[in-house]
């Protein structure tokens, strides 16, 4: 009848590869071709510029509410850079950088942010799910998709994103519990950006880390420096390998920071100190990668300027084409589309009645 310590559980690792000055640990760094690293830098820079343009258009009243990505570019791009095109991305609502890496078009994101569901349509050749706003509800979906991959033996893995606040939801627990019990190929990527609107990370859980929650579900968890794209990529690759080869889940906690607003409807200056934001500005994920690449001769002023020009042109041209597309999306009857695979009889009747009413109004106004 002992009273003793339980058998040692798998410890929770922490991982950091790149420091704030761009120096890196060669032993820990993932093996990555120069071209891919340049592509990652470009994707992070593109997400930052696009985010700024979205914010600017939202402030002009041209777009609706959205959740900016500023500060989380490494945590997102580093993670999705570890999965293949045939794998699945299951985003939350702030994964613009991840979605762009996966091939979502700037135009579609503009269209969705302007309020049209057509902008959420997934390209036919992509497996990814659209943005999911109900907090954490995408996590059981990810496990269901992962179950489908296992059942059909596709060899694909699922990568699901969520924030620190989502770990308090029942969905988080249920999804991780099922993933452990069913042993499915899924990678849970927690973007611990320190704030759930105005609620700080410390008020979500008394636990020392979010990564350690994996222990309770019987699979590995790791905490990485989420502003260090090399660390995120390394941890994600390990998790993807575990998912693909052993059909086992992993929880990755990316410690990062929401440098901007929660959404465009939020003003963080009322609940957090500017000093805290400044501290994290010093750990800006794009700047760290920039310094690192410059030190390795992968980037110079000329290349950076050219890249910035190209990205700006790309964004402006997407906005122009989004506006053209939205011109064609103004038929109000479209609100009756896509509710069912085929419209039901009452839905058809409702649409007809709506159109007749509209015609009557139009006639009355003329």
């Amino acid at each position: 009848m002992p009273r003793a310590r339980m058998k040692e559980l798998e410890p929770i690792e922490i991982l950091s590869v790149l420091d704030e000055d761009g120096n890196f640990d060669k032993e820990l760094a993932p093996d990555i071709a120069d071209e891919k690293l340049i592509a990652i830098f470009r994707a992070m820079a593109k997400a930052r510029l696009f985010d700024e343009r979205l914010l600017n258009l939202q402030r002009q009243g041209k777009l609706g509410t959205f959740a900016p990505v500023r500060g989380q570019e490494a945590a997102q791009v580093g993670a999705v850079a570890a999965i293949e095109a045939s794998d699945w991305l299951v985003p939350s609502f702030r994964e613009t950088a991840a979605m762009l890496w996966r091939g979502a078009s700037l135009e579609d994101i503009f269209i969705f942010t302007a309020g049209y569901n057509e902008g959420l349509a997934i390209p036919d050749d992509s497996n990814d799910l659209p943005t999911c706003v109900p907090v954490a509800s995408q996590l059981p979906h990810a496990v269901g998709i992962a179950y489908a991959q296992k059942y059909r033996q596709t060899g694909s893995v699922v990568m699901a994103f969520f924030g620190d606040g989502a770990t308090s939801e029942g969905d988080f627990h249920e999804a991780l519990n099922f993933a452990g019990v069913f042993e499915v190929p899924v990678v849970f990527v927690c973007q611990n950006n320190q704030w759930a609107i105005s609620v700080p990370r410390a008020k979500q859980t008394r636990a020392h880390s979010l990564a350690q929650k994996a222990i309770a579900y019987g699979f590995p968890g790791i905490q990485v420096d989420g502003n260090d794209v090399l660390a995120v990529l390394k941890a994600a690759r390990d998790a993807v390998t575990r998912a693909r080869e052993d059909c086992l889940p992993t929880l990755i906690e990316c410690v990062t920071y929401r440098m901007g607003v929660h959404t465009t409807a939020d003003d963080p200056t009322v609940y957090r100190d500017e000093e805290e934001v400044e501290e994290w500005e010093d750990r800006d994920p794009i700047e760290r990668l920039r310094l690192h690449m410059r030190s390795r001769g992968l980037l110079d002023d000329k290349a950076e300027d050219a890249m910035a020009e190209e990205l700006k042109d790309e964004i402006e041209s997407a906005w122009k084409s989004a506006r053209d597309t939205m011109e064609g999306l103004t038929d109000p009857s479209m609100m009756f589309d896509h509710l069912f695979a085929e419209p039901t009889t009452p839905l058809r009747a409702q649409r007809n009645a709506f159109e007749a009413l509209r015609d009557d109004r139009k006639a009355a106004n003329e």
Partner: protein
Amino acid sequence: MAIEITMPALSPTMEKGTLAKWLVKEGDTIKSGDVIAEIETDKATMEVEAVDEGTVAKILVAEGSEDVAVGTPIVVIAEEGEDASDVKPAAAPAPAAAPAPKKEEVFEDTPKAPVTSVAVADPAIPAGTKMVSTTVREALRDAMAEEMRKDANVFVMGEEVAEYQGAYKVTQGLLQEFGPDRVIDTPITEHGFAGLGSGAAFAGLKPVIEFMTFNFAMQAIDHIINSSAKTRYMSGGLVSSPIVFRGPNGAAARVGAQHSQNYASWYAHVPGLIVIAPYDAADAKGLLKAAIRNPNPVVFLENELLYGESFDVPDLDDYVLPIGKARVCREGTDVTIVSYSIAVGESLKAADKLAEEGISAEVIDLRTIRPLDIDTVIESVKKTNRCVVAEEGWPTCSVSSEVSAQLMEKAFDWLDAPVTRATNVDVPLPYANNLEKLALLNAGDIVKAAKAVCYKD
């Protein structure tokens, strides 16, 4: 005075069981708490304990007897001072149990008195088709098994659906035929497996999610409504959500207020969902097959009290019914009774009683709640000019409210009396047996309402 022990009801829905084993013999002395017999129900094997002291005077039902109805005297106990050999049973034992049924009929409960009705041929059944008496439970299982044989994307997931064969034995035999990858026992969280099913459907599988009862699905309603019913719409039509949420709905028998609710109007309120609530076994089979094939999310509401009832099911290789089509299950000329699920049975009984009083009632089974086939109801009302909507559920914001409202809008000029609802009492369902009966809709309520709209009360 001799004490007669009767076949006990070991679960709220048990109607009969097998007397598996006697642990005492005639002449044995027993005391309170002694286990005297083992009884098998459709759910488990349970022990029967003696409550009183005495001597086993006469065993009335032999070991191994199957289908012993609840309430049948099984043993007589002589009290102290009585001569066990003199003791006679107080009443004659129930008639001998029916011969052992075939394996697939093990869970077939005693059918209630058949409801006579003027049959209206369902156009989907060719003339001369052989009809097979089938329980609703078996019909649902057959529907799932047939669709699973046909399409490897179809799988069943829920609590107790695999090893235990379903809390109400609806998934009986599926694990054995299709294996654990397709018949999946889950951890206990409706929210979790409804969400997991939603995701599996997004990825192209066709999940059939069983809720042990729809009372528990309240925990999962975010995934039914926000995940399943909205994703096609919100993805501009590109992510499909072919999923069926099924399980018993409505009151069972003495399971208390939290386990006795009808959710038809809750789900019927939601654009993007299809809501089906069949009454008989043929509809259960034909509509569940249609639901599994449907590319949209379907809420399929069964009824626990109907699981054991037998109905004719056409012996066809692939019996699939159209979703969104009501059925005139009895023709009449004086009043239309609109109903669905278990209340259809009460409506048919009411129609029989009304016929005795010279009132000819037409009974319509909505079968699908959303999309609602109001046209069939209107056609009937044009003929009868009077309508009662009968629903085993609360009246406020109910399916019967919706039918009434649509008749006001679309058939007002044909009505000779106000559309009237016959429903449960608008309170949480009482647990006490007498109060529960009083609170639930029955045929008498429908008769009363029908006579009122015919101005014949």
